[in-house]
C-alpha cells in the first residue's frame, strides 16, 4: 500500500509540469516583452514615490508601453523580472533558454555569453539609426567596438571602482588613499569595508600586489594627464589590462596573502550595507562602485528639507587611487531564443533617449552610457557652480571639469564639441561628479576585468573561500578538543558503567529485559 501511494504521488508530480504551459498560453492578444534586469535598476517609482505631486521620477516601463502602442498601434505588455547576481541570471537562461527577450548582465558575463554564442546580434538598422547610435557616448561606443561587443550588447550603466571616504578621518587621508595600499594601514582598515564579492575583491588584491609595477608603467608611458586621443594610450591601457587580469598561480597566492593581511584589521565585508554604514558614520572608508558612491555621498550630505529644516550631515569624497581602476558596465543583450527582438530593440532605443537616460540616472544614481544635450544639461544643473573665471565661496577660482571625451559629437546643436566643460569648486571636484564621470586621465589607467575561464574561476573562488574562511582562532581548536575529550570521557564511562551494572547472567539463566 505504501508503495502505491508513493507511485501515485510521483505520477502526479510528473504530470504537473506538463500541465503548467497549457494554462499559460490561453490568451495571446497583446504583444509581450520579457525583460530581465538587476533589482532596482530602472526608473519605476513605487506608488509612494510616484504618487506625490512633486515627485520627478518617471515610470519608464509604463511610458514605454504607452509610446510603443502609439507608434506601432500594437498594445504591448512588459513582463519585467529581476535578478540578484549575474550567475543567477546565467543559470536561469541556461535552464530556460528563450524565457527572456532582453537581459542586462555585467561586462564579464556579456563576454562569457558572447563566447558561448548565447546572444542574438542587434539589427543593422538599430546599430546605425537608434538613439544609442546617435547619443551613446563616443568613449563607450569605441570601447565596445574595440572589444568586439558592439553588435551584441548595448551599454546601459557604467562606472569605476574606488574608495568613498570621510575627508575628516585624518589629515593625510586623501594622500594615503591615493594608493590602493592605503587601506592596508590598520587605522584605515579598522574603519573600512570592502565588497563581499570575489571579483571585486580580487581586483583590489591584484591592484595592491602590483602597485609598484603599475606606477612604473605610468612613468614609462607618461600617464599623467593622458588623453584618450594620445598615441600611447592604447598601448598603456593594454598593459594595465594585462596586469589587472593576471590569474597565474603566483598572483592568486599573493593576492590571497594580501587580502588575508587586510582582513586581519578590516571592519568587514559588505554586500549592500556599506552605503548606510557610511552615511551613519559607522565606517569611514568604503571600497565601492562609483554609482553606489554617488548614492552614499548624496545621502550623507547636509540638506535643508522643504519645511526649511536643516539636517546635519557630512561631505564625503570619492577617490580612484593612482595605480589603476576597474571600468565596469552593464549592458543589454538579447539572448538566443528571444521571441520579440523587435520590441526589445525598441525598448533599448527608448532607454537610450537622453531624456530617459536622465530619468534613470535620477532614480538609480548610476551613470548612463548615453550622452547628449539633455544629459549634459542635467549635469550642469546638478554640478556647475558658475562660469569660467568665477570663484567659489572661499574666493578660490573654479576649476574646469572636462567631459568632452564623453559628450563630444552627441549634441543636437545646443553645445559645440569641446564645450562640454563644467566649472566646479576644487572641493566639489572630489565628490559626486568624479564618481559620476571619471576624468580622462582616470579612464586612461582603467582596465576592464575579463571573464575568467572555468579553471581560473575555480582557483580564484578557492582563494576567496580561504580569505573568507581563515584564520581560525586558537580558542576554536581548544573548544573542539575539549568537546572531543568530553565525548570520549562520557563514552568510556558508559562502557565502564555498562560492564559493572550488567554482569553476565549466571549459567542456566537468561537475562530478562
Amino acid at each position, binding site marked *: 500500500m505504501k508503495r502505491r501511494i*508513493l507511485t501515485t504521488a510521483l505520477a502526479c508530480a510528473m504530470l504537473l509540469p506538463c500541465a503548467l504551459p497549457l494554462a499559460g498560453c490561453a490568451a495571446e492578444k497583446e504583444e509581450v516583452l520579457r525583460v530581465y534586469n538587476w533589482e532596482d535598476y530602472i526608473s519605476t517609482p513605487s506608488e509612494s514615490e510616484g504618487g506625490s505631486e512633486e515627485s520627478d521620477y518617471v515610470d519608464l516601463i509604463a511610458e514605454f508601453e504607452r509610446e510603443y502602442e502609439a507608434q506601432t498601434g500594437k498594445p504591448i505588455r512588459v513582463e519585467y523580472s529581476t535578478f540578484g547576481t549575474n*550567475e543567477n541570471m546565467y*543559470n536561469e537562461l541556461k535552464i530556460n533558454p528563450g524565457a527572456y527577450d532582453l537581459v542586462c548582465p555585467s561586462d564579464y558575463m556579456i563576454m562569457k555569453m558572447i563566447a558561448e554564442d548565447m546572444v542574438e546580434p542587434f539589427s543593422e538598422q538599430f546599430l546605425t539609426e537608434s538613439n544609442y547610435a546617435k547619443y551613446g557616448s563616443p568613449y563607450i561606443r569605441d570601447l565596445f567596438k574595440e572589444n568586439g561587443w558592439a553588435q551584441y550588447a548595448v551599454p546601459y550603466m557604467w562606472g569605476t571602482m574606488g574608495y568613498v571616504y570621510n575627508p575628516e578621518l585624518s589629515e593625510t587621508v586623501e594622500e594615503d588613499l591615493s594608493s590602493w595600499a592605503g587601506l592596508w594601514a590598520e587605522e584605515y582598515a579598522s574603519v573600512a569595508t570592502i565588497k563581499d564579492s570575489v571579483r571585486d575583491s580580487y581586483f583590489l588584491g591584484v591592484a595592491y600586489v602590483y602597485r609598484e609595477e603599475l606606477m612604473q608603467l605610468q612613468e614609462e608611458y607618461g600617464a599623467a594627464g593622458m588623453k584618450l586621443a594620445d598615441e600611447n594610450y592604447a598601448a598603456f591601457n593594454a598593459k594595465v589590462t594585462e596586469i589587472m587580469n593576471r590569474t597565474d598561480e603566483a598572483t592568486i597566492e599573493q593576492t590571497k596573502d594580501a587580502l588575508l593581511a587586510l582582513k586581519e584589521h578590516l571592519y568587514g565585508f559588505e554586500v549592500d550595507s556599506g552605503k548606510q554604514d557610511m552615511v551613519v558614520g559607522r565606517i569611514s572608508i568604503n571600497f565601492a562602485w562609483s554609482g553606489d558612491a554617488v548614492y552614499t555621498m548624496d545621502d550623507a550630505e547636509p540638506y535643508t528639507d522643504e519645511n526649511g529644516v536643516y539636517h546635519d550631515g557630512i561631505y564625503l569624497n570619492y577617490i580612484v587611487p593612482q595605480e589603476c581602476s576597474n571600468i565596469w558596465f552593464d549592458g543589454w543583450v538579447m539572448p538566443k531564443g528571444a521571441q520579440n527582438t523587435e520590441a526589445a530593440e525598441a525598448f533599448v532605443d527608448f532607454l537610450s533617449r537622453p531624456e530617459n537616460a536622465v530619468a534613470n540616472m535620477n532614480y538609480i544614481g548610476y551613470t548612463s552610457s548615453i550622452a547628449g544635450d539633455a544629459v549634459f544639461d542635467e549635469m550642469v544643473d546638478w554640478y556647475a557652480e558658475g562660469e569660467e573665471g568665477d570663484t567659489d565661496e572661499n574666493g578660490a577660482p573654479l576649476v574646469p571639469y572636462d567631459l568632452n571625451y564623453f559628450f563630444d559629437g552627441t549634441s543636437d546643436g545646443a553645445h559645440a564639441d569641446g564645450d562640454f566643460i563644467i566649472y566646479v569648486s576644487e572641493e566639489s571636484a572630489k565628490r559626486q561628479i568624479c564618481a559620476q564621470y571619471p576624468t580622462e586621465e582616470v579612464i586612461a589607467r582603467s582596465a576592464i576585468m575579463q571573464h575568467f575561464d572555468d579553471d581560473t*574561476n575555480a582557483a580564484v573562488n578557492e582563494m576567496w573561500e580561504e580569505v573568507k*574562511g581563515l584564520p*581560525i582562532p586558537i580558542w576554536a581548536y581548544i573548544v573542539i578538543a575539549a568537546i572531543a575529550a568530553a565525548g570520549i570521557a562520557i563514552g568510556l564511562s558508559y562502557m565502564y558503567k555498562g560492564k559493572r551494572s550488567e554482569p553476565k547472567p549466571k549459567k542456566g539463566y537468561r537475562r530478562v529485559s
Partner: protein
Amino acid sequence: MVRVHFSRRQLCIPYGLFLALFVVIPMLLILFYAFTEEIDGVLTFTFSNFLNFFTSTAKLSTLLMSFTVAIISTAICLAIAYPVAYILARSKLRRRNVLLMLFILPMWINFVLRITALRELLDLIGLLGTQNYLNTIIGMVYDFLPFMILPLYTTLEKLDESYLEAAADLGGNKFTVFTKVTFPLSMPGVISGITMVFMPSMTNYVVSDTLSNFNITILGKLIDQYFTTYDNWHMGSMISIILLVIIFVTMLATGGFKDDGREARGANLW
C-alpha cells in the same frame, strides 16, 4: 446532501504529494548534482566533489568554524534555557503560560528584522566590528533560545511530581534528586532542544553575515556561495549532503544516547 467519504489512504495523498514534490525529488536532485560534474557540457559521475571538500583548507576551516559556533551557541542556550524552563515548569504561578509566551513572543517577529535590530544594538555597545565571534554567538543564542526553552519546558512540565517525592523520601537531597531523577528524565527535552538549536546554528548565515560584517563564514554561507556566485551547483550540493550526513550522524548519536539513557538510567533509577 452529498456525503463525501475519504478513506485513510486517500487522506494521505496530499501529504504524499507534498513529500514527493518538495522532499524526495529535491533530495534526489541534490544527490544527483553532488556526484556529477560537467565536463564540456556533459554530466559525468564523479567523486571529485567529495574529495575536494576534504582536501580543501578553506572548506575544512569553514566546517570547523561552523561546528565551533554551533556547539558554543547550543551550550549557552542550554545553560540559559534549562533553569528558565525548570523554574517555569515547577512554579505554581497561575499565569505561567503568559510568562512562557513572553519567551516565545520574539519568534513572531521576522528574524531578519530582529537580527538587524541586534546589529544596531551591538554597535551601540561597541561590539560590532571588533568582536565578530562573540557577536555571531550572541545572535545565534538570541535567535534560537526559544527553540531550546520550549521542548525543555514541555518535558519538565510533564514530569511526574511523585518521582521527585519518592526520591526525596528515600533520602536524596535536592542536588541528588536533580542529578539522579529530574535531569535524566528531562533528557528527551534536552536532546530535542539540542537538535533544534545545533542544526540551524550551523547554517543560519544571515546571523553570522550581519553580525560579523561577513567576517565569519559558516557552512550555510558556503552552500549559498556555490549556488549563487560561484555557479557550481555540484559542489554546493555536495556540501549540503555532507552537512546532512553530519546532522544525521549527530542525531543518530544523540538519539541512541536518548534511548540508551532512558533504559539504562531507568534501570539505575529503580
